[in-house]
């Protein structure tokens, strides 16, 4: 390699300091030139010097010729064995079934070739296995399912195949399927995203289900607790006859004076009227004596009359008088006789013997049915008379029974 002839003419300088500085610069330049002072091995080599060397020229040519800049590292006789630098800033962003890894530093590695991604299911680098490679600074790990945690490490590999150090001793974890509440947009989950039978009771807030959320006819009996329906929940007029079990209404459930006549079936109730008088009444043979009376409004239904009294006749001389003493009666409704059909019915008659007949006394009981009472109130009278020998009645009683409402 020829030396460059550097010859510096020294001007005359009056300033000693400046002259000394210039002398130092001259010495330095001559040493770098190697032609006039210093050792040959200390001289500088220019690109032009290298252009004449075949091996050097090859390097220069690969670097773009003398017009371009030379690579920072010029090797001769083999590849760059320098390990790549450590990658940095590894982060893992987890999605539903993927972990997205990203890191920095590949652009700063001159002999960078690619990046290795190592993965383990625990934070232990010794258990990690090579999971993939990439030349980018991002890697998508398709885990395939949610709720899976992996730990990751990355390292760069040089063009000579030499790996650099892992990004860190501790792994960087990522867990799939970790969708937090904040990751879900408001109103984002629609019905199709909820599996059938997936919503359990604990997921429903108290008092959250409103009436509009319950379909018509959706609530059946089994969904109502025993004794849960109070009277306030039953609308007025809501309970119909069909909702009341047979024989369910007891007496205590009917208010006093609550049942009026219209609620009673026709002919269902017997309305009784009674009248009685204990005192004795003397009878006459010429004038009817009203021995008992009572009134009833049976609403045109038949009336049963139960009449009883004690009748007595005096003793008589059958031979001397017209005949034995007797008591006879008739029953009248108003002015209409209902029993007997006409005249009187003898209910007691003394027994005549050969001489005077003793007095006779007898309890009389009559049961009569009036099939055609008049509308409204009907007054029934029991009239009695004797045969002229003297008679009386006492303990008179009449019970009228009208089959009414």
């Amino acid at each position, binding site marked *: 390699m020829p030396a460059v002839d550097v010859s510096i003419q020294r001007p005359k300088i009056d300033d000693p300091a400046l002259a000394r500085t210039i002398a130092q610069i001259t010495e330095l330049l001559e040493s770098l030139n190697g032609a006039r002072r210093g050792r040959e091995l200390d001289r500088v080599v220019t690109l032009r010097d290298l252009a004449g060397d075949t091996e050097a020229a090859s390097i220069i040519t690969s670097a773009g010729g003398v017009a371009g800049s030379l690579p920072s590292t010029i090797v001769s006789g083999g590849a760059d064995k320098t390990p790549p630098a450590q990658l940095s800033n590894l982060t893992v962003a987890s999605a539903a079934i993927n972990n997205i890894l990203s890191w920095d530093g590949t652009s700063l590695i001159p002999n960078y070739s690619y990046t290795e991604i190592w993965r383990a299911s625990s934070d232990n680098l010794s258990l990690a296995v090579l999971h993939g490679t990439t030349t980018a600074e991002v890697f998508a790990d398709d885990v395939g399912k949610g709720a899976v945690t992996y730990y990751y490490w990355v390292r760069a590999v040089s063009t000579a195949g030499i790996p650099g150090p892992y990004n860190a001793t501790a792994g960087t974890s990522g867990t799939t399927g970790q969708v937090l509440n904040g990751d879900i947009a408001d109103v984002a989950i629609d019905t199709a995203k909820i599996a059938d039978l997936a919503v359990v009771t604990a997921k429903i807030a108290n008092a959250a289900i409103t009436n509009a959320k319950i379909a018509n006819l959706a609530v059946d009996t089994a969904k109502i607790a025993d004794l849960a329906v109070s009277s306030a929940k039953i609308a007025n007029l809501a309970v119909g006859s069909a909702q009341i079990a047979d024989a369910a209404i007891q007496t205590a459930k009917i208010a006093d004076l609550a049942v009026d006549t219209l609620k009673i079936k026709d002919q269902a109730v017997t*309305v*009784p*009227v*009674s*009248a*009685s*008088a*204990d*005192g*004795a*009444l*003397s009878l006459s043979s010429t004038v009817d004596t009203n021995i*008992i*009376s*009572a*009134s*009833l*409004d049976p609403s045109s239904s038949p009336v049963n009359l139960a009449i009883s009294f004690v009748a*007595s006749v*005096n*003793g008589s001389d059958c031979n001397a008088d017209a005949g034995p003493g007797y008591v006879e009666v008739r029953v009248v409704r108003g002015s209409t006789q209902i029993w007997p059909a006409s005249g009187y019915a003898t209910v007691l008659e003394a027994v005549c013997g050969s001489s005077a007949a*003793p*007095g006779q006394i007898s309890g009389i009981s009559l049961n009569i049915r009036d099939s055609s009472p008049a509308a409204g*109130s009907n*007054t029934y009278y029991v009239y009695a008379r004797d045969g002229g020998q*003297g*008679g*009386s009645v006492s303990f*008179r009683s009449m019970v009228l029974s009208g089959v009414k409402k």
Partner: protein
Amino acid sequence: MIQSYIIYNTTTGEIIRTGFAPADQIAAQAGPGETAVPGVTANDVSDRWDLATGSPVSKDPLPGAALFAVPADGTTTVDFPGLPNPATVTVTGPVSDSFTVTDGSLSLTFDTPGSYKVEINAFPYANKEIEIIAT
């Protein structure tokens, strides 16, 4: 609702009869000259209706003795003066009879020996039973 009632003579207060009837039919139990009173119990023999107080009261006893002894000679009388009119008299015994006194005086004679019971019913007094021994 079934109620008790009494029927009394509107003029005299004599209780004519008593009974039971539906409340709305009690008024109909009273005939001409009678008054019905619901919700009251009484007995026509022992009680009367006090027109002044409007309530049932016991009849006063009829004055006079309750036991007599007379000869059965057909002429000796047992007298009961001052009876109200009318008074119903019933005699039971060896010879029985009944009649109504309308002149306020009763005189009985007996010609058949025996024990007689005389019952006098004369309102406003209580019925009176008298025993007469005729010998």
